[in-house]
């Protein structure tokens, strides 16, 4: 490829990739701001009338804020618990020289890769016996389990990059193990915690399979379940689905644009180092 060609081709290709990445979301946004008449036009209009009708309808007729609340509770609590446990485990795996730490890391990796169906029946039965179906904790506990591998891997590789001298000094100064962890290591691990928290939150916010099994009553359903099960009386309520989709996605779009660097470093953490 000559220099001239690549100079022209490169921006065009990049623009094309960006366009394709954003197009479907753009289309759902356009649909969400159509009017009631607009949305049923055949062929579809490309330029919407910028009506907020479907947002109003999603809020009033489909109770979208209710799903939003459930999603927030579940995703935030999951993130909180997972991160605490991940910091503890990451620190232990990185520092203690435990003999079987690679076995532990390996089994965590396996847990994160199994299709959910291979554990779905028994998980459902455990929750059924505890009478925790249709409760927040009933969904949060499996979510913590499924996000722990990601959290532990990120925290372990983060602690691996912190110099050991700091804690050695603290231990020599007579700090106990627990004091060293809480006073020195945890404050230092803030950037890693933040990266892991973003990824865990996104996972819990987006998860559908277990939410569908466990939350069968509308009262406790999260946004993805709501959006998947939206039904109109006679037709598919595309307008409301689009409005709800935009509401579910905008927080993620903001997170991605602000924390793009952290997300990228977090996703490749531990997996590839030279």
């Amino acid at each position: 490829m000559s220099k001239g060609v690549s100079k022209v081709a490169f921006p065009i290709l990049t623009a094309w990739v960006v366009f394709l990445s954003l197009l479907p979301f753009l289309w759902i946004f356009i649909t969400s701001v159509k009017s009631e008449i607009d949305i049923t036009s055949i062929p579809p209009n490309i330029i919407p009338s910028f009506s907020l009708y479907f947002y109003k309808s999603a809020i009033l007729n489909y109770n979208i804020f209710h799903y939003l609340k459930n999603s927030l509770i579940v995703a935030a609590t999951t993130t909180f618990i997972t991160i605490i446990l991940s910091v503890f485990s990451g620190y232990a795996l990185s520092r203690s020289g435990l003999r079987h730490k690679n076995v532990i890391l390996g089994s965590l990796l396996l847990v994160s890769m199994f299709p959910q169906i291979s554990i779905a029946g028994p998980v459902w039965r455990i929750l059924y016996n505890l009478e925790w179906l249709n409760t927040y904790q009933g969904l949060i506990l499996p979510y913590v389990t499924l996000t722990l591998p990601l959290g532990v891997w990120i925290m372990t590789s983060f602690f691996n990059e912190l110099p050991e001298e700091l804690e050695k000094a603290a231990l020599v100064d007579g700090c106990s193990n627990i004091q060293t962890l809480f006073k020195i290591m945890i404050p230092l691990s803030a950037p890693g915690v933040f990266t892991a928290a973003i990824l865990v939150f996104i996972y819990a916010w987006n998860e559908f399979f277990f939410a569908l099994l466990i939350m069968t009553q509308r009262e406790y359903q999260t946004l993805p379940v709501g959006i998947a099960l939206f039904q109109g009386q006679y037709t598919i309520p595309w307008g409301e689905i689009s409005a709800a989709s935009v509401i579910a996605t905008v927080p993620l779009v903001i997170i991605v644009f602000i924390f793009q660097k952290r997300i990228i470093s977090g996703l490749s953490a531990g997996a590839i180092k030279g």
Partner: protein
Amino acid sequence: MNISFRLRGQIFALTLLAPTIIFVCVFAFYPIANSFYLSLHRIIIGLPELGSRFIGLENYKALFNDIIARKALLNTLLFVFITTFFEILFGLAIAILINKRFKGRGLIRASILIPWAIPTVVSSQMWRFIFNDKYGLFNLLIYGSNSDHYKAWLAEPLYAFIAIIMADVWKTSSFAALLILAGLQVIPEELYLAAKVDGASTWKQFTKITLPLIRPALLIALLFRTMDAFRVFDLVFVMTQGGPADATNVLQFYGYKKIFAEGLMGYGSTISVLVFVVTFSISLFYIRLLGRRLTRGTS
């Protein structure tokens, strides 16, 4: 270091790890073993008075003769193979594109991440609407405003299958790109400079420097994408419900239907076991292929 001090450190480490280990045992390892146990029994969710009768391998015999299960297995394997292939291909292209330094690179990387960040349910509804027979963008792009030709894409077996593949490739190519990008970034610039001095063409540089050096990154992307593709569920649930005529039925969806829609906990569990065995063997294969590289970052 004295021994009791070391021992105390180990006990401290195990205490810190205990909650994680308990979570994983209760909600991951026990369920896997329990699925196997359940698959040897006849259990129907809606009829608890039937109890759970041990029936040996009856469920597995039924599974072996279940035409829909065979179709779902075939569909899943096809789906995994095709989507992974395209995701790695596009992922590689995107990674090379965004690896260059240019103004606004952060913004472009962020927009490429959007498909990955969107909830799969949302992207499934998006694609379902795009392929809609009356109001869909796809028909508009192909047939223009001539609505007589508009097709119900998701109502035709082959197109429906292609549609869920497109939706998946769209959503996860960027994830593959990120993993590959991490591999690209550790290649020292000097290698390319030296190659240029020696007069190597761009293609030669790509096949002789880039490809061999990102092989581990490619394998890791392949591993993650393969395992994730086996989990395909949201797309099928929202876009096609496995139809038309089971053309898009996949194992995870079929297992879900058997266990939770039909209440066949015992029979459905054979599908859970099947999925586990297939994915476990594939992941072992990859992990052996990758060897210690996978844990090198953390050890």
